[in-house]
């Protein structure tokens, strides 16, 4: 699908987030890591909140994590998602110590629980956009 026919919100990458989205296109999950003290952070940000260093590296993340919380959305709130209901939205505690949010795939809503092991997978939404999704580990 091209961006022209895609009817959901498109992320506009900025200076901080571009490496994240570029890696997504290659089906890789990368996270920012402070070049000075090593603290991992997400979402992408300009400065380390532990030591204020602007020296940033991008590291390959394991993609492994556990469910922190979730919701099942029966209302779309944006017309682009009406055909996808219900949405299973998950916040994941990644093994790297940060959280991220994405839609779940192949996760039985009845079996969802805090701490459930999951992994990050990738879905090509348009020619230029790949989104992370959450699958059972």
């Amino acid at each position, binding site marked *: 699908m091209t961006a022209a026919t895609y009817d*959901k*919100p*498109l*992320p*506009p*990458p*900025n200076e901080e*987030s571009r490496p994240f989205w570029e890696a997504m296109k290659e089906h890789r999950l990368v996270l920012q890591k402070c070049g000075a003290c090593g603290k991992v952070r*997400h*979402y992408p940000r300009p400065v380390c909140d532990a030591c204020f260093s602007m020296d940033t590296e991008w590291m390959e993340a394991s993609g492994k994590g556990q469910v*922190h*919380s*979730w*919701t*099942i*959305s*029966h*209302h*779309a*709130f*944006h017309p*682009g*998602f009406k055909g*996808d209901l219900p*949405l299973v*939205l998950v*916040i994941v505690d990644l093994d790297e110590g*940060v*959280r*991220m*949010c*994405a*839609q779940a795939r192949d996760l039985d809503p009845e079996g969802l*629980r*805090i701490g459930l092991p999951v992994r990050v997978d990738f879905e090509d*939404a348009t020619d230029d*956009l790949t*989104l992370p999704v959450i699958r059972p580990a």
Partner: protein
Amino acid sequence: MWSLRDKYAIAGVGYTEYSSKSGVTVLDLATRACGNALADAGLGADQVDGVISYTFNDSVPAMAVATGLGLPGARYAVDYQAGGNAANLVIQAAAAAIEAGLAENVLCYRAMNGRSGFRLGGGRELTARGITQHTAPHGWISYPQAMAMWCRRHMIRHGTTSAQLGAVAVTCRDNAALNERAMMRQPITLADHRNARMIVEPFRLLDICLESDGACAVLVTGAERARDLRQRPVYILGAAYGGGPNQGDDLFDAIRWPDHDHNYSRYIADDLWRGAGVGPRDVDVAEIYDCFTYSVIVQLEGFGFCPPGEGGGFVQDGRIARDGELPINTHGGLLSEAYIHGLNHVVEAVEQLRGQAGPRQIDGAEIALTTAGAMTCGSALVLRN
């Protein structure tokens, strides 16, 4: 910590009709509510030199309202870029501004066409820009979805049930039934809650607040001045604002919050009670920010009415009803009166402490708590008559 105990007071409150279609501009609503607060206090506009408001890009600037009211010289006109978390902060700020000599009589207002105009629950996160590029593309767009994550974690960790959420919804509606200005006055039962349409699990339609057009205004002045005005003064005993670590890039963003099983209230409670010199047991009526039913439960825990995790049990068995141990949201709250972003809770607390709440009056109410906010930051007041 708040060091102005009893030095400042709320001398007037005003509001417009609450509706789903006001048919007038937000400036009109704001000006009317402020004018009504001045009439209530018996204070002339020529005496007002401060105006404070908060906006989510859905309101009009304080200076426009100062102009609309014909204030001769607004020395202090300030807009907070904030949501419901600021509903009590503006009053704290008004007292602080007077203490600093920046103004003498300050109007605080919140005005919005929140149903017929800009709909907070629908539109804010629709576009992926800035921080929302990491949420909106997944369909994670609106506050009910955000708060559902918090509620879910609380339910799993503490056994909080949907029936307990329902107890909050039913209580608010019972109170709204006695409130002429409430938008939703038809009583509901726990069964109505149980059968309501599921919107965002675990929230059903009756767990989610209203969307409203309307405005509220509150006049803050020195305690002595207030005693010379028309109404019985309502003194600001305590005030606190804040939250915990990692409050996020905006109100929606809680990805770095320590744990979604508790919110801002846990972090500001000590400050609030120590500043006020009273504790939760002294509160006669509590107007708790209720953007969602769950928000009430987690704040009752955070402000110390019960231990962490026990808020679900606390709201059952009539304990929060008008004749219960802790009457809450006697106007119906955001769930059943109107969504004026928490300032309507202050209006109600003032009317309760003046003994003007009519059929929903809590007999002998002397101390009221108002709270504002539901996620990573918020504000609260302790008021007394």
